[in-house]
Structures are given as C-alpha cells and as structure tokens.
C-alpha cells in the first residue's frame, strides 16, 4: 500500500480530523458502506470520553472482521457470534476497561444470539455496537435473520418467504425485555441528522458501561450497497423507506440509572 499523506495543505485550517482512536490507514470497506461511519462514531466517542487507553474492541466475523486494524486501541477478533462471551471474559478480568463488541446481524442475531442474550441478561458491563444491514455482507449477500420479508438475497432468490424461513428478528426490542439490559436503542445511519443521534447513543452506551449500570446496545440500521445491488445513495434511501418501517427507531430501554446520568439530562 502506498504511503498516505494525511498532512493538511498549507494555509488551511483543520476543522475536521481523524479521531485519535482511529488508526491511520485505509479500510477495505466498499464505497458507500456505512461501516466506516459507525467506526468513526465509536472512535469519536472513545476520544470524547477519554477512553482510548481503556478501550478493548472485540471485532466479530463479518465484513468488520478487520475492524481491530482500524482502531488505535487494544483489540481482538472473536469467533463467529462469540464476541459477547469473549468480551465477558475480558471485562471480568479488566473491570475498568471499556469493552465494546462490534457485530453484524448475521454474527449477533443468528449464530451468536445465545451469547448476546446471556450477556444482556447477566447485565454484563459491556457495550454492543450492532450493525443491522439485513444481509450477510462478507459471505456475499445471503439471507440474515434480519432480512426483510420478500427481500431477495443470494440464498433467498425468490424473496424471503416468511412461511418458510420465519420472520425478521427485532433484536433490540428482544434484548430490551431483559432486566440486565440498561440501555437498548435503535438508530439509523442513513442521513446526517440520524448519524448525530447515533453518536449520542454511543456516548450514552459507553457512559452506561463506565458507570457500571449494565448491558448496553446500540443497533445501527446500516447499508450494504454491494450486496443489495444498489448505488450508495439508493441504499441509504432503502434504509429509510424499507428498513425503518420494520425496525422503528427509538429508545427501547433506558434504565432509570442511565436516564439519571449527567443529572437526568438524558430524560
């Protein structure tokens, strides 16, 4: 890879920078993929809360498998679906660390559903960043538990038939039912306004963890232009027009203890 020149041109003011918690490197994500956006949000949140030197990122198996290379923090790569279990081991012996899993919908909602439910029900003090793009990206576009009814994928070529393959799973709603869950919200990355909201949610989730209040998850509706067969712009529109109606945005669980962080400003 050729060296990248990150220095700003002369006579120009820096108004927007790479967060310290992001590594100086290219990512392998497709053009228009929102994985880059969610990476940035998490890195900014680490920086703003002064957590770069406390963070331990648990990458998962999916397109974000190399996310540990893109963050300038301690990190590891879990087996498919097992990130919440690995994070549990890390957090129990590093109680002061900020342990974050970064998981796709195949990883978390399919093969790893048991691990995430039990981490939540234990009130494990970890934060889960859940990237819901309604498809298996890395393996080339197969049906995920979150694929929408009728959605065509490479393993549901006639469109997802719910009678045969079941219904899409609303993970955040599910986890919000558990007493160990302190904070469970769904956000979307399809436009700037929603991205800002997602950032706030990541900050709250990390604060929830650092205050020891319990399990926190931020689901982010994300795009996969490559496997949806769309342009990046069409893909963002699809998030808004098709995904949000099935996956309503909102706060599904904000425990009182979380609402009272910062003197109740979050209410």
């Amino acid at each position, binding site marked *: 890879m050729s060296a990248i020149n990150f220095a700003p041109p002369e006579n120009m003011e820096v108004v927007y920078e790479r967060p310290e918690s992001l590594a100086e490197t290219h990512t392998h994500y497709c053009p228009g993929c929102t994985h880059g956006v969610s990476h940035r949000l998490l890195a900014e949140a680490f920086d703003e809360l002064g957590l*770069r*030197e*406390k*963070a*331990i990122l*648990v*990458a998962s198996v999916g397109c974000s*498998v*190399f996310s*540990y*290379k893109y*963050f*300038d*923090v*301690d*990190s*590891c*790569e*879990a*087996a498919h679906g*097992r990130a919440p*279990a*690995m*994070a*549990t*081991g*890390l*957090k*129990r*012996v*590093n109680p*002061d*660390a*900020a342990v974050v899993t970064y998981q796709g919908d195949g990883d978390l909602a399919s093969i790893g559903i*048991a*691990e995430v439910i*039990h981490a939540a029900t234990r009130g494990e003090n970890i934060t889960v960043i859940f990237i819901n793009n309604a498809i298996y990206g890395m393996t080339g576009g197969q049906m995920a538990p979150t694929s929408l009814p009728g959605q065509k994928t490479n393993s549901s070529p006639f469109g997802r038939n719910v009678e045969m393959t079941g219904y899409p799973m609303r993970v955040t709603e599910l986890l919000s039912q558990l007493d160990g869950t302190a904070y469970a919200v769904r956000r979307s990355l399809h436009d700037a306004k929603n991205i800002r909201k997602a950032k706030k949610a990541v900050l709250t989730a990390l604060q929830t963890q650092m205050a020891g209040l319990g399990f926190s998850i931020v689901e982010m509706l994300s795009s996969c232009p490559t496997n949806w067969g769309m342009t990046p712009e069409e893909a963002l529109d699809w998030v808004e027009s098709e995904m949000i109606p099935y996956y309503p945005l909102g706060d599904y669980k904000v425990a009182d203890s979380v609402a009272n962080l910062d003197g109740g400003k979050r209410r």
Partner: protein
Amino acid sequence: MAKEMLKGNVAIAEAALRAGLEAYFGYPITPQTELLEHLSKRMIELDRVFLQAESEVAAVNMVYGAASAGVRVMSSSSSPGVSLMQEGLSYIAGSEVPTVLVDIMRGGPGLGNILPSQGDYFQVTRSAGHGDYRPIVLAPASVQEAIDFTVMAFDLAEKYRHIVIVAADGQIGQMMEPAELPPMREVRKERPDWALTGAEGRDPNVITSIYLKGEEMEAFNLKIQEKLSEIRRSEPRWYEFQTEDLDMLVVGFGTAGRIAYTAVEMARERGMKVGLLRPQTLWPFPEERLSQLADEIESVLVVEMNAGQMLEDVRLAVGGQIPVGFYGRMGGVVPMPDEILEAIEGHYNRLTVRTVRT
C-alpha cells in the same frame, strides 16, 4: 503440607486456585461438576472471577477473552462439553494465549454415560479443534498426580503460550484418596506485555487468529510447528515400573495404566518378565523412550479404556519392530487387574511359543 482425603475433582479445583487461578468459566456436566461447584465457592471467597456460562461454547470463549487479557484462566468439562469447546480451542491455539482445560472424560459417543472412559484420547491429542496444532495433554493416574499436573499445566501453558489439557477419566475425578495440596500462591499482579488491558501509555495490542495471505498463514503455522517441536523435545513425561530385565512391556495411561500396574506386579510374581510404561503426557507422547525399550524387548501390550486409540501412537513409536497387542474395555467399563493379567498371559505365552519355534 500434610496429606488429606481428597476427591479428584475437588483436588484439581483447589490446586488450580492455589496455583493462582484468577478466572474460571464453566458449565455443569457430570462427572466433572464438583470441580465447578468447589470453585463457585472458593473463587468468590477469594474475590476472584467465577462465572457459570450459558454453555460450553460460551465458556470457552470467555476463557479466550480472559486469556487474551493475560490472566491465569481455566475451564473444565467432560466429553460432550469438550466437543462444544473445539471451536474456541482452535481460536485460542491460533492466537497463542495460555489456557488450561480440564477434561474429566466419560463414556461416548453421543450423550453416552457418566462412567469413566478414555474414549476421547483422539479428541484431546490430535488437535482438539480445526487446524494444524496439538495441545499439550497431561494424563494423571491418581489424585496426587491430578493436583501436580494441574499446577504444572499453568506453568506449561504460560511457558509456551499454548493450550494445556488435563485429561483424566471420570474415575480420577470421582475417587477419593490421600493427597497433598500445594501451598497457596497469590494471583499474579503484572500482566504479560502482549495482554489486552487497555493501551495505557503504550501501543495497542492485538489478539487475532486471522492471516488472510497464504504466506502469512504459513509463516504463522511454521512458528507454531517450531514451538510444538520444542515441546516434543522437552516435555514428554512418563512413569516406568519393572522395565529392567524385560521381555514384554505393558503401556497404559490414567486409570488403565494404574490398574495395569497391579496386573504387572501379579505377572512378575508369576515369573513373567513384564514391565509398565505409563505415559503422563499423552502429547507429547513419550515415543523416544518407547522406541528405545522396543529395541530390547519381544512385544508390547497396550491397555486402554477405549477401542484402541493410544494404540496408534504406540505402533508409530514401535515402528513395526515387534508385535503390539491390545486389551481394551469401553463404554465406562473399567478393566479389573485379573482381566489385564489374563491378557498379559495370553500375549506373553504367544511370545514364548514364537521364540521357541525360531
């Protein structure tokens, strides 16, 4: 410290704790459960980490996490649970984080039963997960050895940044006998420099098992192989009995090896020149010593509580120089000394017939 009456499972748990165990993750399964139960009390009393996981799949991945943080960590299980741990063990081997697992083996395949068995010799000694590696496998034949090997397991795991499995059959886990526990060691304060702790004042550490490029993956494999060669050279351990003035050698591990000891004593009383080699490390297998002995004797009899698994390693070590016989019981049936004696006699007599003819 004086000897006391200890049950195998409890002794292993207490020995691990005294070796400075900082975190334990496990899931109940007979005939291992007393180990988990003992730690559920003692670890909490000592303000260390104990967690009953939702499955063996989760338990091994919790171990993977804690091992990545560089602490002394272990899990324990029995055959079906160890099957579920294979994925995690492979990731652990591929990340080179020190890990100890205790496998109190039971009868299989399938749900099988809860009786003592050695039917998982292949499972633990071959790779215990996908990919090209073998864990170190220690096979105790008494409660005292179970204690000593558990302590040694942590030291070996850290020395080689590798998996060490203490593989005992259910008999060792369940029986009580007098044994001496080690002195209490404190939990280590420092973490190794590769550990995940949060990158405070240093460059970030990464623990991963992924190497996308063929050449890189091969280079990593070569590194593991080098480490395994060193283990092969330095770590084989075994116990020998009556191996001087010898015609025939009996080879057995764990409980089968211990019962074979009694049978060998009986055979000697009957004037047969028989001795015992009991491997204490199943991997690395004490192949060199076995091959040396094979040069001097007429035949070998392998005794196991399975259908003949270590038998393959014995054959490899002996290399076709002499006949290798086998006596095994399966499904949780433990052989009696007189059964083994009969097998010894049968094998020994054939040998005499053959020697007379030539």
